């Protein structure tokens, strides 16, 4: 077994991009004109809009080794010094000539430089996560640029395109279309989160994608009041070889009483005419100190795969899940959270998962929170028990800290180990209204690493600090 020999992460000062520098030149990024007198307010209400921006910069230093290597080989460790930069900016309620508070802009991106030699990582990488402008005109609105559609038939999809919508007397209608963002067009197909396998390793090398073949479109019609809401949605996503996914979604929510809400959702996979996912739930607060939730779900995961996957037509076996949650605020400083679900997998034995946690929270000026949780998971072939204790404390007006410990105990051995443990902690310091530093460290023992020690320092700079509400 190869092991991660050590890991050290550090941080550099924020390196904001040009956009944020431009924003920083403004005296206040949540601009509100000087308050008018009540008399003036009647004549013309002051414009209220907000612009906020944030930068996060990380410099890491660590050693790592892939586990396991090719055919179980122990591979040499490599030293890495990646530099990450995250940028966020958005503006809301900006006036347009045709309507007040009718323009919104959002931007989010990350970038990474990998200056050391690596067989798996490129020297530079990054992604534009969001870059869109939203315009309103009367009951209609439109959003242009890189954006996302979430929930319903789409589940979660990002695309470059346009979304339009309109509302009238509780009814709403939305439509969208554009080119899909995943797979990433600045990376090899198949690249997602955990790393990009070298092309030379692959037997089947996928063809370079033509972006015009990857597009999506969909829409939704619904009705929404304060007590009833629901929508029917449609989503069609295409890839080079045809339909990737084509879904019909139904989502309904009802609040018959103040503290009771019911909901249902279903995702119909149109190609096979079967429900990929369907759930029904109820949330209830019989007392102001008690929250109850119950849920039943049916899922056929194979139908959530791309329709271009042969595997998606090999199986439609699914599983049913039934369970609920209970939260009891026993005392003003003590709360119990429990949840439990049982799963019935077709063709195998049942599974189950549940957690029981106690949470203690005290202090208003220097809040302290302690949470101890026990988790049990029973899944086909293996399961585990886990104990987790978490502690956070505000030590001074500017200094806060957390401590955590996890212990996992597996039903069956994983790589020869029956347990693993993680010890972690953080300390954050608010150096100024706009600038916060956070240092974290963790030590873990697991089947994949005899010792995994990490430390990280993070700096966050809020360009809109003057508009942040005062935290006492």
């Amino acid at each position: 077994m190869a092991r991660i020999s050590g890991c050290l992460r550090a941080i550099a000062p924020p390196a904001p991009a040009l956009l944020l520098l431009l924003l920083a030149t403004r005296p206040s990024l949540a601009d509100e004109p000087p308050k008018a007198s009540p008399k003036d307010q009647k004549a013309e209400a002051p414009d209220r809009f907000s612009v906020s921006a944030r930068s996060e910069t990380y410099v890491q230093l660590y050693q790592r080794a892939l586990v396991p290597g090719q055919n179980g080989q122990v591979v040499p460790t490599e030293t890495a010094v990646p530099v990450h930069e995250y940028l966020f900016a958005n503006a809301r309620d900006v006036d347009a000539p045709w309507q007040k508070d009718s323009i919104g802009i959002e931007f989010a991106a990350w970038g990474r430089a990998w200056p050391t030699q690596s067989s798996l990582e490129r020297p530079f990488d990054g992604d534009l996560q969001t870059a869109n402008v939203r315009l309103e005109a009367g009951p209609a609105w439109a959003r242009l640029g890189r954006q996302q559609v979430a929930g319903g038939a789409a589940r979660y999809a990002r695309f470059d395109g346009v979304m339009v919508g309109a509302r009238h007397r509780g009814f709403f209608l939305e439509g969208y279309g554009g080119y899909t963002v995943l797979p990433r067009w600045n990376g090899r197909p198949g690249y997602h989160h955990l790393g990009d396998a070298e092309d030379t390793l692959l037997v089947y090398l996928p063809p370079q994608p033509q972006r015009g073949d990857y597009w999506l479109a969909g829409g939704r019609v619904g009705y929404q009041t304060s007590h009833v809401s629901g929508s029917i949605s449609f989503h069609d996503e295409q890839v080079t070889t045809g339909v990737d996914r084509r879904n019909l979604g139904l989502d309904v929510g009802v609040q018959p009483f103040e503290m009771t809400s019911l909901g249902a959702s279903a995702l119909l996979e149109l190609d096979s005419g079967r429900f990929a996912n369907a759930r029904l739930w109820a949330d209830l607060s019989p007392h102001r100190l008690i929250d109850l939730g119950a849920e039943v779900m049916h899922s056929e995961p194979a139908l959530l795969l791309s329709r271009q996957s042969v595997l998606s037509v090999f199986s439609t076996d699914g599983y049913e899940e039934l369970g609920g949650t209970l939260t009891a605020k026993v005392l003003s400083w003590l709360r119990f959270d429990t949840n439990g679900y049982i799963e019935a997998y077709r063709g195998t034995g049942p599974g189950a998962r549940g957690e029981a946690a106690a949470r203690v929270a005290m202090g208003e000026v220097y809040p302290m929170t302690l949470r101890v949780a026990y988790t049990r998971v029973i899944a086909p072939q293996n399961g585990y028990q886990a104990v987790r204790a978490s502690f956070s404390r505000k030590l001074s007006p500017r200094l806060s800290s957390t401590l955590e410990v996890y212990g996992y105990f597996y039903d069956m051995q994983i790589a020869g180990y029956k347990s693993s443990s993680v010890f972690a902690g953080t300390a954050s310091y608010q150096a100024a209204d706009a600038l916060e530093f956070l240092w974290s460290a963790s030590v873990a023992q697991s089947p994949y690493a005899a010792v995994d020690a990490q430390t990280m320092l993070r700096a966050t700079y809020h360009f809109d600090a003057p508009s942040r509400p005062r935290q006492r």
Partner: protein
Amino acid sequence: MQARLSALLLWIAVTLAAMAACRSESGPPRFPHQTHLAGLACGVPGKPACLTCVSCHDLAQHDSGQRLPKAAVCENCHRDAHQVKAVLASTPVRPSGEITIDHDKHLAMPELRGQCVPCHAGVVDSKRPSLPPMSKCFGCHEHSEQWAKGECTPCHDAAALRRTMPVTFLKHDTAFLRHHGSVMAERQQAQLCQNCHTQSQCQSCHDVTQDLTVEARRPERIESGQVHRGDFMVRHAIEARSEPARCLSCHTVQGCDSCHSARGVSANVANPSNPHPPGWVGGNTASADFHGTVARRDIVSCAGCHEAGPATNCIRCHKVGAYGGNPHPRGWKSSRGVDAEMCRYCHE
């Protein structure tokens, strides 16, 4: 094992001790409103005039911070400036941020008759909050028009909304995370949710292209319910079998395969390691280890390594005319004919 358990118990004991030590710390006490309003000798010759709410609070101010009395007001009676400063610093945390409210207009309402206490019950009852919950506001105001449009402003300040967690109305309780996709779908996209949340916040969890996971970037959020905390790398196979549909909320099977390929346990690499038990491929279809049985139950796990689009190695045995038999389950149907491009790999 025993040593780890001992370490765990020791850590819990230490935190409990810390908790006990902290128990006596509750910060400066709540301001004794009742004493000031009803417990002072006042209004008689030789005594100062009786206090009312507006004696100290300037309700005409929009900024709630400015509505609080200045130290000079307190120092008319209290001479310990340090104590005054400490008490004024103990104002309660406002979970909903700044609220835009016209106090004069509310006090003029016949239901309130100029009284502050109906909303701010905590000033006379220490067991109740000083600031009214949102359900109190909704007790009189329906705000149905704003609700239908998904507008939280102007009552809530837009900047404050982004850092506010609802505690009563629309509260994000323990089950909310499981339903949040559907809650978004029921309502107008970009309206209600986006009063507080930006799309980049969704992507903070859902965008799997990021190098740094949300757990790595936000290690201080110990109660956030992030799914990959702890040694998730070790547990991921168990979690995937327990809740396979949940993984597919964010991940595609290519995400599994790109990592498995790099580690040599994917069918898509040359000379791969074979993790399967004896009897995996063979004629004994009754065996619990037979690949068909496992594939029926958990095809998504198969896809973690064997997903290479239509060129997957399953086709070699299972295409029409080959010896692997029909892999389609009972009841299978497709809107596409066998001449569709993907179907032709088997139905050639």
